[in-house]
Each structure stands twice: as C-alpha cells, then as structure tokens.
C-alpha cells in the first residue's frame, strides 16, 4: 500500500500546524516520524486518517483518501489514542465492537489479543487496564483487519522496558511481512533501532526524509537524537520547544 502526502497544510487560526508537507513512506519498510512537541506529527497522522480535514493538499492511501476506502481497517490500521476505549467495556468487547463495524470475525479478535499479550486480561474492563495495557489494546485494534499499512502514533508510550522490547520485535515482524509501518515517537534512541527510514519535521515543515542507513553514514554515525537536534536547531524550529543547551 502506498501512502502519499502531497502539499498537506493545516492551520488552526493564526497557527500553522502543518505546512506544505510532502512525502511518501516507502512500502514494506518502517518509517519513523520525528518532530518536537507541536511540530505537527499527530495532526499529519490525523489528516492521513481522515480525522482532521486539511486546508490544502492531499493525503492518500493507494490513491484514495481515507474516507473513500471501503472497509478501511482491512487496508490501514491505526493507533492514534490509547484512551479511545469505553472504560466499562471489556478489552475483548472493545475490539468486538470495532471488528463488527469492519466485518472482522470474533476469532480474529482473539488472535490479535493473543498477539499483543492481552488474552488473560481480555475479559477485564478497560478502565482497570494500565497505560501499557491500553497501548497494547490500541495496537490490537490497529491490527484487527490484518492491514497492509500500519500507522502508530507514539506506540511506546506507557510501555515498560519489556514492552518496548516486545514492540520493537512486533514492528520489525510486521515490516518483514511486507507491511508499511509509519510510526511516530519521542523515544529517538529506541526508534533508531526499529526504523528503516526517517521523516523529520519541524514547525510543520519537512526537514528531511531519507533512509536511516544513509543518514547515519552522512553524519559519521551520530545518534538519531543528535541528528534530530542538529537538524531542527539548523531550522531554528526546536528552539521554542527545548532548551538545547540542557539537552546537548
């Protein structure tokens, strides 16, 4: 599946959240999406998923806007908010509801619950889940339709070290099966171990989009964190978000 973002722009009043953003995560690879808080990552992902309307530009999946996809969960699975579950509903029922909309059979619900390690907790109410368990449930929801493209917004949030290790393995496995994985994260050290390509944005604008291997080679093996800080410092974009002196 081919994701294409072309000239994507979104403004909220006087604030430009995303400006003329154009890139395309490569199919069958893991693309990391990196930017400071407020850089426009979540807004970009929400526009791709049809949850937010762009002011201009397009975001398409195989040439179609998200809203034009027939049964979108079979094409693209997304994790945008791990709290998007009714606290009184059990984990299994939360997924059954989503699965029913997408014509996904109940045995697939049990399969993805097992995949994210929530089988034992499936009958418990989501309100009693830890943050990490809700992240896993949101990930299970993204995988429900066995999609060829997976979009994950900060999937490692709330996961303990074992969880982060497990997530890295899962993302690599999904990519090895030929799926396109587009993942945003603040955990740059972790992300650098997982991704094939990186997209860095600052103040809603594209800073770079290139393979990790080439980027590391070009920067003499600097870490992704150092590269990110350097590139966003150059654009002046990160100065309002971070005290760079403190970080470097």
């Amino acid at each position, binding site marked *: 599946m081919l994701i294409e973002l072309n000239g994507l722009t979104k403004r909220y009043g006087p604030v430009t959240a995303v400006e003329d953003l154009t890139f395309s995560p490569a199919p069958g690879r893991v693309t990391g999406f990196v930017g400071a808080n407020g850089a426009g990552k979540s807004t970009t992902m929400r526009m791709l998923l049809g949850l*937010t309307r762009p002011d201009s530009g397009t975001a398409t999946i195989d040439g179609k806007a998200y809203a034009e996809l027939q049964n*979108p969960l079979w094409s693209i699975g997304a994790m945008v*908010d791990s709290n*998007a579950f009714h606290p*009184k509903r059990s984990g299994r029922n*939360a997924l059954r509801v*989503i699965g029913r*909309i997408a014509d996904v059979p109940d045995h697939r619900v049990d399969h993805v619950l097992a995949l994210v390690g929530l089988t034992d907790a499936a009958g418990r109410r989501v309100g009693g889940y830890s943050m990490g368990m809700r992240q896993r449930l949101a990930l299970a929801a993204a995988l429900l339709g066995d999609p060829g493209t997976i979009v994950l917004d900060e999937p490692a949030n709330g996961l303990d070290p074992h969880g982060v290790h497990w997530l890295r393995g899962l993302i690599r496995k999904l990519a090895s099966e030929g799926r396109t994985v587009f993942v945003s994260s603040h955990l740059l050290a972790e992300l650098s171990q997982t991704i094939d390509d990186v997209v860095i944005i600052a103040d809603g604008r594209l800073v770079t989009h290139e393979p990790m291997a080439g980027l590391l080679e070009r920067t003499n093996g600097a870490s992704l964190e150092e590269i990110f800080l350097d590139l966003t410092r150059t654009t002046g974009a990160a100065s309002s978000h971070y005290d760079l002196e403190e970080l470097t």
Partner: protein
Amino acid sequence: MRSLIYAELLKIRTTRMLAVTIGVVLVIAGALPVAYGAAAGSGDQPPLAPESLADMVTAPAWLAGGAVLIIGLLASAGEYRHRTIYTTRLAEPRPLRVLAAKLAAITVIGLAVGVAVDIVAAGAGGAVLAHHGLAIDPFSHGVPRLALVIPLVLVLHGILGVAIGAVLRSTTAAVGATLIWAFVVEGIIPALTNNPDLVNWLPRGALREVLSTQPTPGQLAPLAAAALLLGYAAALVATSAVLDRRREL
C-alpha cells in the same frame, strides 16, 4: 450498513447502562399501576374502573421515554466523552452512516423497551383491576392504540436523544440542555409570549396529546401531535447530520 447497526447495538449492550436503565424502567412500569390502584378513589383521584387500564398503561410512558432518550443521548455523546468516536470513525469514516446506524439501533431499542413496558404495565394494571374485582378488557378504552403508540413514542425519544447528543457532543451538556428545555424553557415560553396555547406546539405538549386517551378540545389531534413530534425529531437529526459533515473530531 447492517454490520454498523449490529456494532451500535453491541456498543449499547456491552456496557451496563442498557441493562440497568431497562431494569429500573420495568420495575417502575410494574410499580406505577400498583400505586395508581392504591391511590384511586382517595382525594380527588377517580375510583378504579375497567377503563383505568388505559391510564395505567400510559403511566410509565413518560419515564420510559426519558430513559430511552438518555440511552440515545449516551450512545452518541458518550462516544465523544470516552473518545471511542476515534475508533468508530477509523472503522467507518463516513459520519452520516454512523449517525444512521445509531438511529437504527435506537429504533430497535425503543421498540423493544416499549413493548416490554406495555406488557409489564398492562400485566400489572390487569392484576390491580382483578384484585379489585373489576373486569379486564385490554381491547377497549384505547388500550390497543396506546400499546401501539408507546413503543413509537419511545423510538422518537431515542431519536431525539441520539440527535441531541450528536449536536452537543457532550453528555453533560446534552443531559443539561434536555432537562433545561423540558422543565424550564417549555414552561417559560408560553408565559413569555403570553400565549398559553403555545405549549401545545412544543414537544411536551405534543407528547401529552399523543399519549392522551381522549382528545382534549382546543388542542392538537393525536395524529397532528405525532406529526409535530416527528418534525422536531427530523429537524434535530438534520441539524446533527449537517454538523457532523462539517465538524472535525
């Protein structure tokens, strides 16, 4: 579309809201005719008579209507409160289809609750009449019409609830606005406009006429009142549909 309707029914079924609400409504639907029978003949209450069955069947309709309205309201506004609207929209990105599925689901629930209320209230009313040695005739005194009308009225309440919740996107605002409308605005408008008859054209007045066993002179005929209620529901649904298309999450 059928999958979407099943999903909406599953959403409502998989929290305790539906079971608790229906349980309370049915208990009260059974208790009200008993209370009606106990109060009959005392003070200015008319004595029990075979035609009292119609009043006893009608008695729980207002409460049941309110309960179905709340279920509808939570079914739509609750999606925003618990942010489940994100997973819903990711699975079905066309908001009008989601709204239509919610309306269909609440129609099913309204009809089911209405029939259950009919059965419980008529059963309890019949038992009260029998206890007092009075004849039970469920096929006269307007009882069959009421038994048909009450489920439809409950459906209308549910539709109003879904539409109000979809417009306001907040359970607190939706419940508050509904209560203020029902108990404040409808009381104030006729006084403010110095036109007491205006109340007949407001939802509660129309509802009262739809549920009345005998038409009141000078007020809307039951069919006209039903058409008016449908108009209110259609206007709210159209508003929520237009807003749903325009607004972002």
